[in-house]
C-alpha cells in the first residue's frame, strides 16, 4: 500500500503544467481565444473596446443571456434542449411589468412571484419529457409557442408597458453605491476596488486552505512555485477586472446577479451529490438509473432550474429596457445555446461546465460589442458569429477525438 502511494505520487510529480493543459485543452482554448478576441478588438478600436465604459456595458448586455446559458448548460449536459426559455423570459418580464405597473404589487413581492412562476413553467415543460419520454425538442418548442402567445396576450391591450419602478429598473441599469473616501483615488469607484481586494484575499485564503487539506491527506499538490504562479494569475485577473470596472460606474447589479448565479451553480455542479447525479445522468442515463439515481427526478430539477434562470433573465431584460415589449426574449434561446456550445458543452451529454459556458457567452458578446464598435454591418456580424460557433464546436470535436 505504502509502496503504491509512493509510485502514484511519482506519477503525479512528472505531470507538468503542459500535461494539465493538454487534458483540459478545450476549456483553456476558449479562454485563450477570448483573450485573443479581446486584444484584437482593443487594437482595431484604438482601445475603446477595453475601456471601462465598454466593458461595463458589455457585461450588462451579456447578463440576461449568460444566466440562461448557465441553465442551458445543464439542460444539454442531461442530453436535452430547451427552446422555450426566450419566450418564457419575455413573458415573465411582461408579467413583472404588469404586476408592478397595473396591479401595484411591491417589487419585493413581484420578484419572488416571478421566480416561482419560472420554476413552475420549467416543471410543466419537463413533465412530458420526464414522464413519457417526449423529446425535449418538441415539448419545449410547444412550450415556447405557448409562452409567446401568452406574452402577446398580456401585452395585447397595452403594447409596450413602461416600467417606472426605480428599484426594478436599477437591476438592469444600476450600479452598486460607492463609499465616499474624500479625494482618495478620484474618478475611481472605491467600493468596487475594495470588493475586488476582498475577492483576491478570499481566493488566496481558499487556495491555501485547499492546499493544506490536500497535504493533510498526504496527497500530491502542485509545486510551490506553480502554486504561487496560479495565485498571482488569479489575483491579477480579479484585480485587473475590478480596476477596469472601477473606472466607470463600478460593479453593476446585473453583474452581482450573474456572479451569484454562477457561484451557486458552480458550487452545485462541482461540489454536491446533485451535481454529480446531473453529470452521471448525462454520461449514461441507464447506468445512472441502476446506480439509484432517478433520471426523471434529475430531469425535473434541471428544467426547474432553467425556469428559475429564465425568470431572472426576463427580469434583467425588462429592467434593462425599463419596459416590457411584445418581442422581448426573441432569440434568447439561440444565444444561450450558442454560448453553451462555444463554451465546450457536448450534445452527446455528460460534458460541459458552468464556467465554460460563461466564457462562451463572453466570447459571443465580445464579438457583438467589438464588431459594433468597428461599425461592421449586422449581416456580417451574424456570419462571423455563426462561423465562430462552428469553429468552436469543430475544434472541441477534434480535441476530444484525439484524447
Amino acid at each position, binding site marked *: 500500500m505504502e509502496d503504491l502511494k509512493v509510485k502514484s505520487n511519482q506519477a503525479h510529480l512528472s505531470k507538468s503544467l503542459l500535461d494539465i493543459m493538454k487534458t483540459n485543452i478545450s476549456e483553456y482554448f476558449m479562454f485563450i481565444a477570448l483573450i485573443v478576441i479581446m486584444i484584437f478588438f482593443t487594437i482595431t478600436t484604438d482601445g475603446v473596446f477595453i475601456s471601462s465604459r465598454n466593458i461595463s456595458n458589455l457585461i450588462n448586455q451579456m447578463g440576461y443571456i449568460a444566466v440562461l446559458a448557465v441553465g442551458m448548460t445543464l439542460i444539454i449536459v442531461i442530453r436535452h434542449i430547451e427552446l422555450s426559455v426566450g419566450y418564457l423570459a419575455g413573458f415573465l418580464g411582461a408579467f413583472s411589468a404588469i404586476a408592478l405597473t397595473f396591479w401595484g404589487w411591491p417589487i419585493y413581492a413581484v420578484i419572488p412571484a416571478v421566480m416561482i412562476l419560472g420554476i413552475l413553467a420549467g416543471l410543466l415543460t419537463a413533465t412530458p419529457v420526464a414522464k413519457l419520454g417526449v423529446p425535449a425538442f418538441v415539448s419545449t418548442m410547444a412550450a415556447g409557442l405557448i409562452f409567446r402567445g401568452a406574452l402577446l396576450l398580456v401585452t395585447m391591450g397595452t403594447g409596450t408597458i413602461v416600467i417606472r419602478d426605480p428599484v426594478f429598473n436599477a437591476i438592469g441599469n444600476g450600479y452598486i453605491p460607492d463609499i465616499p473616501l474624500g479625494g482618495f483615488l478620484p474618478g475611481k469607484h472605491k467600493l468596487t476596488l475594495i470588493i475586488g481586494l476582498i475577492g483576491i484575499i478570499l481566493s488566496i485564503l481558499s487556495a491555501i486552505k485547499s492546499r493544506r487539506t490536500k497535504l493533510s491527506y498526504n496527497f500530491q499538490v502542485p509545486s510551490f512555485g506553480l502554486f504561487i504562479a496560479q495565485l498571482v494569475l488569479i489575483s491579477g485577473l480579479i484585480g485587473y477586472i475590478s480596476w477596469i470596472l472601477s473606472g466607470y460606474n463600478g460593479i453593476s447589479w446585473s453583474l452581482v446577479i450573474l456572479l451569484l448565479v454562477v457561484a451557486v451553480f458552480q458550487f452545485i455542479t462541482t461540489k454536491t451529490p446533485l451535481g454529480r447525479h446531473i453529470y452521471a445522468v448525462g454520461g449514461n442515463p*441507464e447506468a445512472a438509473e441502476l446506480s439509484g439515481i432517478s433520471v426523471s427526478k434529475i430531469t425535473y430539477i434541471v428544467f426547474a432550474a432553467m425556469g428559475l434562470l429564465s425568470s431572472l433573465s426576463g427580469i434583467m431584460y425588462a429592467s434593462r429596457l425599463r419596459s416590457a415589449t411584445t418581442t422581448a426574449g426573441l432569440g434568447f434561446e439561440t444565444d444561450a445555446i450558442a454560448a453553451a456550445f462555444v463554451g465546450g458543452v457536448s450534445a452527446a451529454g455528460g460534458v460541459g461546465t458552468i464556467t465554460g459556458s460563461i466564457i462562451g457567452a463572453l466570447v459571443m458578446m465580445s464579438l457583438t460589442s467589438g464588431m459594433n464598435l468597428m461599425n461592421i454591418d449586422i449581416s456580417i456580424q451574424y456570419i462571423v458569429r455563426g462561423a465562430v460557433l462552428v469553429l468552436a464546436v469543430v475544434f472541441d470535436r477534434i480535441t476530444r477525438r484525439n484524447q
Partner: protein
Amino acid sequence: METPILEMKSITKEFPGVKALDNVTFSVRKGEVHCLVGENGAGKSTLMKVLSGVHAFGTYTGDIFVEGELQKFNGIRDSERAGIAIIYQELALIPELSVYENIFLGNEVSNGIVIDSNESISQAIDILKKVGLDVNPLTKIKNLGVGKQQLVEIAKALKKEVRILILDEPTAALNETDSDNLLQLIRGLKEQGVTCILISHKLREVMEIADTITVLRDGKTVTTLDVEADKVNEPVLIKHMVGRSIDNIFPKRENVNIGEEVLRLEDWSAFSYALGRDILKNVNISVHAGEIVGIAGLMGSGRTELAKSIFGNPDHYRLSGKVFIHGKEQKFRSPHDAIKSSMAYVTEDRKGNGLILIDDVKHNISLANLKEITTGGVINENEEILIANKYRSELNIKTPTIQQKVRNLSGGNQQKVSLGKWLFVKPGIMILDEPTRGIDVGAKYEIYTIMNSLVEQGMSIIMISSELPEVLGMSDRIYVMSAGKINGEMPVEDASQEGIMALAVDY
C-alpha cells in the same frame, strides 16, 4: 462425392485479445438442412458473419468456396450475389413500412424514377405464397406478430435468387405454433432445393429438422455428424457442446459457512411491454448468507431480466409475485430502493449500463454511494480520492491514476471498477451478471478470488453466467433457467455440464 455447395476451410478470425474462430472447417451439402450448435460464444455467429461478408475478406484467414468457386466477400452485397442470404435473430424490418415495401427494400421495382407499386405488390403476393404467409402485403410490419415478421424476413430473402439460406436462432422469440410453422417452411424450402443453415439452441427442434449437425466449441469445430448415419441423440450433442475441462482456474474457498435465507422469490413473474410477452414465469428461488448461487441458462432465457426485475425493475416490467429480503416482503419501486435494502447489481453490459465511460475512475466508484462521503451537502473530494485508491489497491485495478477516464481501461479493469463501485455501497446481496465476460484469464482469477472473500465475510452472491465451468467452479447451488422459467435447481455436487445444458436447452 459431389462438390459441397459450401465449403469453409481453415477459417481463423481474431478480435483484439480473442481468437473467435480457430481453424474452423465447415462443409454443407447441397439441398440439406445443416444445423450449427454450440454454447454462447462458441463462434457460431462469427462464422456466419464471415460467410455473409460482414467480416470482410482479409479480416480472417482461410478460404470460402461456394460450389467449388473461391469467394472473396467484401460485404453483404457480395455474398447475396453469390446466393447467400442470412436472417438474423434481431429482425431487420422497418416497422412503419408495409410488408411489400419491406420485401423490396433496397431493391425497389421501379421504372428508374418512380416505384411501381402494383408490380411490387403482385410480386410480393407470389413470394408470400411461397412462405405460406397469408397477409395483405399493404399491412404495416408493426401490426404483425413476431412469427409472421420472421416469415416476411424469409420472404424478403427468397425474393433474390437464394441458394443458401442462413437462419440465426429463428425460433428463439417464437411460440410453439409459430416455431412449428417455421420448421415446416424450412422443410418446404428444402424440397424446392434451397440449402438451409440453421443456428439453434433448441436441440429438440435441431434433432427434428437437421440432416447434418456441426458442433462448435470455443471457436473450433468439434465434429460434424450425419443425423441418421451417426444415430445422433440429444445427450450425444450436449456432450460435444460442453466437454470443456474444468481446470483448477477456480480458487478454493476456505470456509464455506452458509447462513440464513436473505432473499426469496415467490411465484415471481414479469411481463415486458416492450416485447409484448412474459419474460419470467413463476420463478421461485432463495439465496442464503455466505452463499454463491449460480444462475445458468442460455442468452435470452431471462437471467438478466430476473436480475433487473428484482433490482428495482428499471425497465418497468409488469411484475407479480413476492420478493422477501431477510424474511420481509419488499416492493422496490426503483433501483434506489433496492440499493437502500443493501442490494447491488453489477451489470452484464459494463459499457452500456454499468459505467459512465466518459467519467473517471474515482467518480464511477463513488457514484452509487455519494452520501457516504458528503458532509453538509458538499462532497468531500479528498475522502473520495482515498476511497477510490482503497478499491484500486484492494481490487488491483490497473490504471495510471484514479483520474483516468474509465473508457481508457481494459475490460478486466473496467469490471473491477464496476465491482469497486458496488462494494462501496457495502451490499449484503450482490448480483453479478456475467462477471467475467470478455476479460482475460488472469483478471478472471482475481475476480473469483474477490468473490470468495466476499462470501466468506457473509455476503450473498447471485452469479449469472453463460460459462458452465464458471458456474460449476464457483457456485454452491445452481438454478438453471430456460424461457423465463427455473428448469432445475441443484447443489453443485450434483451438477454436471451435461446436466445443466440439458436443462438449459429444454424449452
